Every structure is written in structure tokens, then in C-alpha cells.
């Protein structure tokens, strides 16, 4: 990303620009195309970098909004800090670690140097499976942590499904998606029990 763009984004989001260590870090990492433009609260830089890539793959920007347009990586960082119970946080971190290691093994480089294409390849390896296998995975994840033999798959799927779930949750409860894309009707005033779906269009946001 262009340094000037980063500065512009920073000043928009903070209202001012100061040369804090985290800002310098972001600027110095522009060469590796760092996608983190906010102050991380829970995730490390590399964890945030990977989460941002994955949310972008799950809900990409196109002619409609994508995950990054409605700050999903920031939302996931926030809820990990304030909402997610300790044991689930630990599972998330284990999953993140295993996923990073997988990436390194496969592409022979650090995740911070990873490209969209590479993350897409790795995510597809886990998500592009038959619906039968998907059901098997959800069944497998209901097993309690202590009884797991294949811990690698367990933690990776827990991690990826967590990111997928909160990407969807954050996206569909965001203001821009809720008011610009979905059907937003804060005060309906009446209840029409059965009408043609064409009259309404998209699903209701609230």
C-alpha cells in the first residue's frame, strides 16, 4: 500500500497523526503489504495480518461491500479481547499457531510475507470439501477438547470456523450492510403477514 494512503487512513480514523511506535511499525511494514491499519487490541501483528486476509477471502469486496469495508478484522480483534471466554480464546490461539505453521511449511516463508493467493490456497484446502465431509467436520468439532486425537485439524477448524462465523456476524450486523444492502425498516408501522418477496427484495437487517 502507498504510504500516503496509509497516512490518509490513519488520519481519518484517528483524527490526527502522531509518530507512535505502532504507527512506525505499520509504515515500515508497508513493503510486506501489511493489511493492518488500526491498533490491535488482542491479536499480534502476524495474527491480525492473517485474520484480515481470511476475512477478506470469506467476504470479499466486489460490487458490494466486503469484510474489510465494514471493519471485520477490527471487530474480531475486539470481541476476542472483551467477549470470548478464556478457554475459547486459548483454542483460537492454538488454531492460529497451527495455521501459521502450516503456512510456513507449505510456502516456506513467514505469514507476514504471505499473499492473498497463498492464503486462498490454504483456506480452500480446508473449506472446499464435499458437504458430507463438512458435516463430518462439524460433528468432529462437537467432541470435547480432551478426547481429540487429531489435534491439528481440530484447532485449525475451530480457528477457521470462528473467523468465518464472526465475519458473517459482524458483516450482517454492521451499519453499512444493514442499511445500504439489506432491507432496513426501523419502524414498519404495520404487519403484512404474507406478501410477494419481490415487494421486499433483500432479507431484513433487524
Amino acid at each position: 500500500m502507498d504510504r500516503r494512503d496509509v497516512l490518509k487512513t490513519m488520519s481519518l480514523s484517528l483524527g490526527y497523526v502522531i509518530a507512535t511506535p505502532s504507527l512506525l511499525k505499520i509504515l515500515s511494514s508497508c513493503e510486506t503489504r501489511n493489511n493492518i491499519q488500526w491498533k490491535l487490541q488482542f491479536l499480534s501483528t502476524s495474527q491480525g495480518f492473517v485474520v484480515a486476509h481470511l476475512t477478506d477471502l470469506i467476504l470479499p469486496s466486489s460490487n458490494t461491500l466486503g469484510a474489510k469495508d465494514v471493519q471485520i478484522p477490527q471487530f474480531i480483534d475486539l470481541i476476542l479481547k472483551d467477549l470470548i471466554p478464556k478457554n475459547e480464546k486459548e483454542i483460537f490461539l492454538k488454531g492460529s499457531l497451527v495455521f501459521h505453521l502450516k503456512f510456513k511449511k507449505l510456502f516456506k516463508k513467514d505469514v507476514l510475507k504471505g499473499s492473498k493467493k497463498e492464503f486462498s490456497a490454504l483456506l480452500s484446502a480446508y473449506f472446499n470439501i464435499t458437504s458430507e465431509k463438512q458435516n463430518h467436520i462439524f460433528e468432529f468439532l462437537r467432541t470435547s477438547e480432551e478426547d481429540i486425537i487429531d489435534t491439528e485439524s481440530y484447532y485449525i477448524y475451530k480457528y477457521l470456523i470462528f473467523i468465518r462465523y464472526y465475519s458473517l456476524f459482524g458483516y450482517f450486523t454492521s451499519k453499512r450492510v444493514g442499511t445500504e444492502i439489506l432491507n432496513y425498516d426501523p419502524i414498519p408501522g404495520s404487519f403484512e403477514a404474507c406478501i410477494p418477496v419481490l415487494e421486499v427484495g433483500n432479507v431484513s437487517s433487524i
Partner: protein
Amino acid sequence: MSNNDIKHYDAIVIGTGISGGWAAKELCESGLKTLVLERGRMVNHVVDYPTATMDPWDFKYRELTNNADSKTQEKQARTGYVTKETSKHWFVNDLIHPYNEDKRFDWIRGYHVGGRSITWGRQCLRLSDLDFEANKKENIAIDWPIRYQDIAPWYDKVEEFIGVSGEKMGLSHFPDGIFSPPMGLNCVEDEFRIKIADNYEDRYLTIGRFANLTGDKTHLGRSNCQYRNRCIRGCPFGAYFSSNSSTLPAAQRTGNMVMRPHSIVHRVIYDDTLKLATGVEVIDAETYEKFTFSAKVIFCCASTIASTALLLNSTSKRFPNGLGNDSGELGHNLMDHHFKVGATATVNGFDDKYYKGRRPASFHIPRFRNLGDEKSKQSFLRGYGFQGSASRTNWKRAINELSFGEELKNKLFKPGPWEIGITGFGECLPYHENRMYLNYKKLDEWGQPTIAFDCEFKENEMKMRKDIQSEAIKMFKSAGFNNVKGYDEPSFAGNAIHEMGTARMGLDPKTSVLNKNNQVHSVLNVYVTDGACMTSSAYQNPSLTYMALTARAVNHAAKQIKKQNFNNG
């Protein structure tokens, strides 16, 4: 003059929830100077509903519960819904207001003016003689001292004032009331209604009877339902009934009400010479100061648990086990409805249909078991009704898959397939051993004993649950729905937030606490008109009955005062 300076009133009402609000209104409208005591903070209609018009994105955590809050509301959170960012402020901090459990009991409540009338489910179902006669016919516990005809005119009065929308059915065990136009059933719900009518002779589906305004009748200061379905947050339109929107303003208008929030009533004062109560002792929740207020008549409307705790704590030489507890039944026969059992299904077709507006009401299938004939007789006693709804799914339908990318995004913008779900609400029998009591070893911040629960659902309820699940599955299957799945989640007493029965009404002072007018048998100027008075639980959502009994009891009390029967000053 501050309200601490006036010490003498005609009447005192303890509690401002659904019963207390009605007691306040009726007493004030009878011309009686009434002091209304509430242990929690003031909540003014509209201005004190902080989340009423907020959208998901207006909340920092998009309505989810955060870790800091969940630590203070662990017991309230057992409901799964009340501690969300939208409504957590209506429920107590469990660390400040602890209670004890010999067996798990979910005591879900809020301390503020309006109480749970702000957050109630708004379903208004009358009891019938099938309910009032059941204990006697089956020789269970004790007989109710009243019958349907005693309460029917009071149901009328309450429904007319609060506004209930619904459909008349003409079923004797599910009495009709005074209704404004019913809300509509969506096309899948209507399909289910038709299928039930085709497949069963003994059951019907109707829209629930809800205290949300529809139609053209005027209710002062309130307007019709706007179909936002955010009732639990407090309604800025006053479209559903609550003490704050309706009864308390009515009481205020008379000029006869003095409202005192932050007032913990811990004792009813009894005079053994007069054989009457003379007043109450109050602790100011904020300053810890103590006050005494006196009145000719006292209405206990603090809730099933809190009113009974107050009576249990009001000991004297005459009543060593609690005021009016000659029978030993005070605190016993605790009941709640059991639920969280039923079925879900998906429904094919209707892809070109949708609805507009968010209806704050479910459909209802009235009780069809044990109606007194041979055909409906079961291996368990009493019965249950179903509540449910159908809707088109949103993005959540994609939770249990691994799809991703633009195609997923575009798919989820559109309404998904239809799904339908129903849950049974079942009657719980009154068991003497299901009880609450006071623990004097563990005191709260105000030096008051904490409450302990020893209550559970038993064999009859468990048998009924099996039937609920299998009938739910059968009804969906016979309607031709797909992916029919039954469920039976653990249902703990208290979780339906319909607790009742701890100071039951009865004919005999030896086996009951209250008489047919809701007076304490042995202290006639003390009335208990909240859920504590219930002799059986029936299956119906109970608030309407508390309101009707309260209005009826106030009418009785006002007559006694006129006849100077309560001269205690």
C-alpha cells in the same frame, strides 16, 4: 414536603410490577391515598428506555454479552437472552443480589419501577374452570377458593384497559376475552393452521393473545404497535402494556399516589391486639436509613418470591414462622412452567412469499390433553399448550457450512428457506416439598436474609414432556414439513419466569395462606395478589390472572375500608 414526611396512608403497595401497578391504579382510583414502594430505581416511561431505538450496530458488541457483564449476571444469563446489551439493565446484578440453591432455580428479575412488566412476554391467556377445578377433581394439593365466574368480570376489566389483541375461539377451556384485532399469521403459519385443522379434530392453531395495541380503541398516552419487536427494551410508543406505560400514569393522574423508589420493605408490622397489620418497615436502598410507614391496608405485590420472603421475615410472637403462616404452607408449593421442549422443521415452497414488519407475537395451540373427556385422557395429569412461529431464515442459515467468497455473500442478502418451531409450555403440579425459605446465616448488603430454593420438576412433568415432544413431531410430520427434529432441553424451575404458588389461596386457613379475596387468612388487611397466590399453575402464561385478581382484591379492600373494617390507627 418530601415523601418521607408523610407517614400515614390509606394504603401501601409493595412492588411496582404487573400486580403492583394494578394495585396502585385501582387503590388510587378508589380515592385512597396510596404509598407505592419500590426497592429499585425510578424508571420513567419512554425517557428511561436507553436502548429502545438502537440498532445492532449502535451497540459496541452488536448486542452480545461481554465478559465483564456476564460475571455480574451469571444467574440472569441462564435465560440465554436477558443479559444482552439490549436489555441487561432490566435485570439484577447477581453479585449484589445473591440467592442460594439447594437445587438449581433460575430466579430472573429486575429491581426498578415497573419490574418485569417492562420485559414480560405479554401473552394474555385466561384460566378456565378446567384449571380452577382440577386440584379438587384430582385430589391434588387443595382446591382453589374461586371459580371462573368469580374472576371473569375482572379479566374483562383488565383486558379492556391494557388492550389485548387476539382471536376468539369459542373453546370453553380456553375462554375468549375482549380482544382488539388479531395480528396476522404468515403464509407458512397459516399453512400449518390449515393442516392441523385437516389432521386433528381436537386442536387448533391461533395467533397468540398479546398485550400489544391494535385496532382503533383509545388508550391514553399509548399508540398502536409499530411492529418493531423490541418490546423487551421498553416501548417509546407505549404500544404494549407495562406498569410504566399504563397503570402507574393512571394512578399518578388521580393525585392520590406517592411513589417512593429505593425502598426495601423488609417487615410488615403486626398488632396482636387489633389482629391487623399497621404498616411496614423500610430500608432506603441508597442511604440505609430506616423508615416506618403506616396504612389501613397493605398490598404485597413484590413478586411470588419477594412477597413471600417479606411475610416469612415478618415474625412476631403471634406469628413465629412468618406473618399469616399458621398453615405452615408459606414458601411451599413453588411452581413454574416447564418448557424448552418441542420440535423444529423446514418448510418447502413459499419461496415467493415474505412478510413486512416484525410481529411481536407467536402463534398458539391451546391445550388439548386431559380436557375431561375419555378421548383426551393421558397417563399424566393436566396439560400444555404450544407457542411457536415460522420465518424465513437470514444469514444464520450459513453457520453450519464452510462456504465462502462472493457467491456466499450474494446468497445471504436474500431471504432463505422457511423454518418453523414450536415449544410446549406445561403445567407443573403444586408439590409441598418444592419450596423457598430464608437463610439468616447469609445476609445481603442491607442485612436482610437471603432466599434459598429447593424446587424441581417431577415425574408428572417429565411424562408430559415426552408427550409434548412426540406430539410436536407428529404435527409437523403430518403437515408435510421437512427435516422435522424434536428437542428436549433441560428445563429448570424459574427459567420460564412464571414462578408462583408460595402463599396459596384456599378455603381452609389450616392448609392455605390466603382466602378467596387474596387476604391473609389471619391478618385481613394484608393482601397478596402477585403470583404467590396461585393454588395451581395451569399451563397459561399467568400475568393476566395476577392483574385480574389484583383488581378484584382492591375492589374488596376498598369496600372494607369504607365499612371501617380495617381501623388500625
